[in-house]
């Protein structure tokens, strides 16, 4: 009674975390260091299990600070390396993220976020100084497998950290998959890496975030280094990637990213079937943000909504993209499960569809049962301000 569909028998049922790890190994990742934190933990577990088999090393770092430092060292030798955590752990790594950018180390960073509240952290950074990281936000495991490999390529291409922004759903959803190794254009050898062989030759090298070089070699100086790094920003902006749907005649445009985008797209497809002219823009790169796509989509629309599971972060970028052509409404909200690790009841196609339809028909956003107003907790003088 087993009927196998042709050409699909090679696939295995795989948890998202494992798929991301296998994709990393397919991309040639040789080193990983991490510290367990829900919902990132399984990524670390799979690296610990699979990377040694593939000739690499995974270290159970004693802290996030140490994890990012270890990956830093591995990268400096020219190998592909990564670290990761949840947004909380990434907060601890921010100093390194800033300086890795100056050191031009191609680190891939996994954020298995507890929600979508790390958008600012990912795209603006919590670190010091001028820096930008390419941020890739897969909507599902399948896309994650591609984007992880792209992340390693882009990191090397630009010698710049690249973040993969996932979440609880991406990490834990299982899909039937094969991990195919993707081909990318060839990159030049990493002549900047250090391996010890040039020591004592008078031509030793250094990998450093500081603007200094070895004595006798051309040097940026601190100011020059900052200016040089800044020249890469507009070039990296060309790496923008975006998916759109139903925009041609859309009166309402919804902007959405990551796992929740899958819910939004599903809801929009249902609304389309009912004749509602609604389309969507899904940034695949959160930085660079597809401002032009959002601008063009808003040009013919009456209204734009931003759906994200936060108090409203990406909506800032949506507003920049829309540039006043249409009103922008935040239709998402903070929504986690009772543990704080997963996603709450807002992540439901019916709930999302009701919110999109309310926006589309210029009605008030429906209240989600159980999502009370917390204004009662405000102090009296704050309550006055709330009124």
């Amino acid at each position: 009674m087993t009927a196998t569909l042709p050409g699909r028998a090679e696939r295995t049922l795989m948890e998202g975390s494992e798929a991301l790890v296998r994709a990393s190994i397919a991309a040639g990742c040789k080193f990983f260091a991490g510290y367990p934190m829900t919902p990132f933990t399984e990524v670390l577990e799979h690296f610990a299990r699979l990377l040694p088999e593939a000739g690499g090393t995974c270290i159970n770092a004693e802290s996030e600070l140490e994890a990012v430092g270890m990956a830093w060292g591995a990268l400096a030798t020219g190998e592909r390396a990564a670290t990761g955590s949840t947004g909380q752990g990434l907060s601890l790594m921010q100093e390194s993220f800033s300086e890795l950018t100056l050191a031009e180390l191609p680190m891939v960073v996994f954020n298995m976020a507890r929600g979508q509240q790390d958008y600012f952290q990912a795209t603006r950074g919590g670190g010091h100084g001028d820096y930008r990281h390419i941020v890739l936000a897969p909507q599902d495991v399948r896309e994650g497998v591609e984007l992880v490999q792209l992340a390693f390529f882009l990191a090397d291409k630009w010698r710049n950290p690249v973040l993969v922004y996932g979440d609880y759903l991406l990490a834990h959803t299982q899909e039937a998959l094969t991990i195919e190794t993707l081909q990318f254009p060839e990159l030049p050898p990493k002549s900047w890496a250090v391996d010890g062989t040039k020591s004592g030759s008078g031509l030793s090298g250094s990998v450093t975030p500081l603007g200094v070089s070895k004595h006798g070699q051309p040097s940026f100086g601190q100011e020059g280094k900052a200016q040089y790094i800044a020249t890469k920003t507009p070039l990296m902006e060309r790496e923008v990637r975006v998916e759109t749907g139903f925009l041609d005649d859309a009166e309402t445009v919804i902007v959405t990213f990551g796992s929740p985008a899958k819910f939004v797209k599903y809801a929009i497809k249902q609304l389309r079937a009912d004749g509602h002219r609604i389309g969507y823009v899904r940034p695949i790169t959160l930085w660079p943000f597809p401002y032009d796509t959002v601008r063009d989509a808003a040009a013919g629309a009456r209204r734009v909504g931003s759906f994200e599971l936060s108090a409203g972060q990406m909506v800032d970028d949506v507003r920049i993209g829309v540039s006043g052509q249409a009103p922008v409404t935040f239709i998402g909200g903070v929504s986690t499960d009772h543990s704080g690790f997963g996603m709450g009841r807002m992540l439901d196609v019916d709930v999302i569809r009701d919110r999109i339809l309310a926006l589309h028909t210029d009605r008030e956003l429906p209240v989600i049962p159980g999502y009370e107003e917390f204004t009662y907790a405000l102090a009296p003088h704050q309550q006055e301000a709330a009124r």
Partner: protein
Amino acid sequence: MSTHTPRGPVLDTTVAPAAARIVEALRPELLLTQEHHMCPGCGEPLALRGFLDTLSEMGVAQRSIAVAGIGCYTSFSGTMDVDLVQALHGRAPSVATGVKRMKPDAVVFTLQGDGDMVNEGLQEVLHTAARGEQVTCILLNNGVFGETGGHMTATSVIGQRTKNSLDGRDAEYHGYPILIGDLVSRLEGAAYVARGSVHNAGAVARTKKMFRRAFETQVERRGFSFVEVLTMCPTGWFVPTADGPGYMNDTLGEVHIMGELKVDGVVRTTDELRIENEHRQHEIEAALARGGLDT
């Protein structure tokens, strides 16, 4: 040490003499220039010479990788002729871990100060030692933040005057110093732990032997190795440069006891170290009086 008064005319020391062989070269082979921006009387360049010459003498220079922390010594990052990874303040042991795991045949060492290692990055060095990582951590310990201008660190000794302990470090108010070498020596993964100093020529020579044992420990993959070097910082201590060695010996040297704290996995007591130190000092002085140190 010297009790003599020089006599006769000043000799010409601008040109190399004839009919003589070089005993010690001007600067370490692994320094691209002798120039640096350390203050007068700084002890850090002395330690630098010790480990750079050791790498050359062991024949491992061409496979050595340095990981530098952030402090005054960071300015040597650009002048050491050693492949180098610049780490953030405190983070060098983790960075060295990543380097070593990817390049297991390289001789990987960190260069850190006490502010870097014992303040900001204490957990890094302890965890790296506990893991038995096959790297060598080198600490230049002068008991102050030299680069910021003489502020208290976790190794400043009781009574030590710094810019933020103006009346001297007070245990009740500021807490006690961390004896990092002693701490590291208690960790199972640490195979070789030593504390040297550079306050006189004998101490410099003895410390150089510690560097050699540490690097040998790494090359032979016997575990984590650690050399702490007490260094003078007359600027940060607010003493005349010539008083630096004496001040160092009387303050830091009385608390952070010099010697090999752990050899072949065996931890040695402070009393053992004190006895040995007296013995060693007599030997070294005698050797110098005979006309040279056999390093």
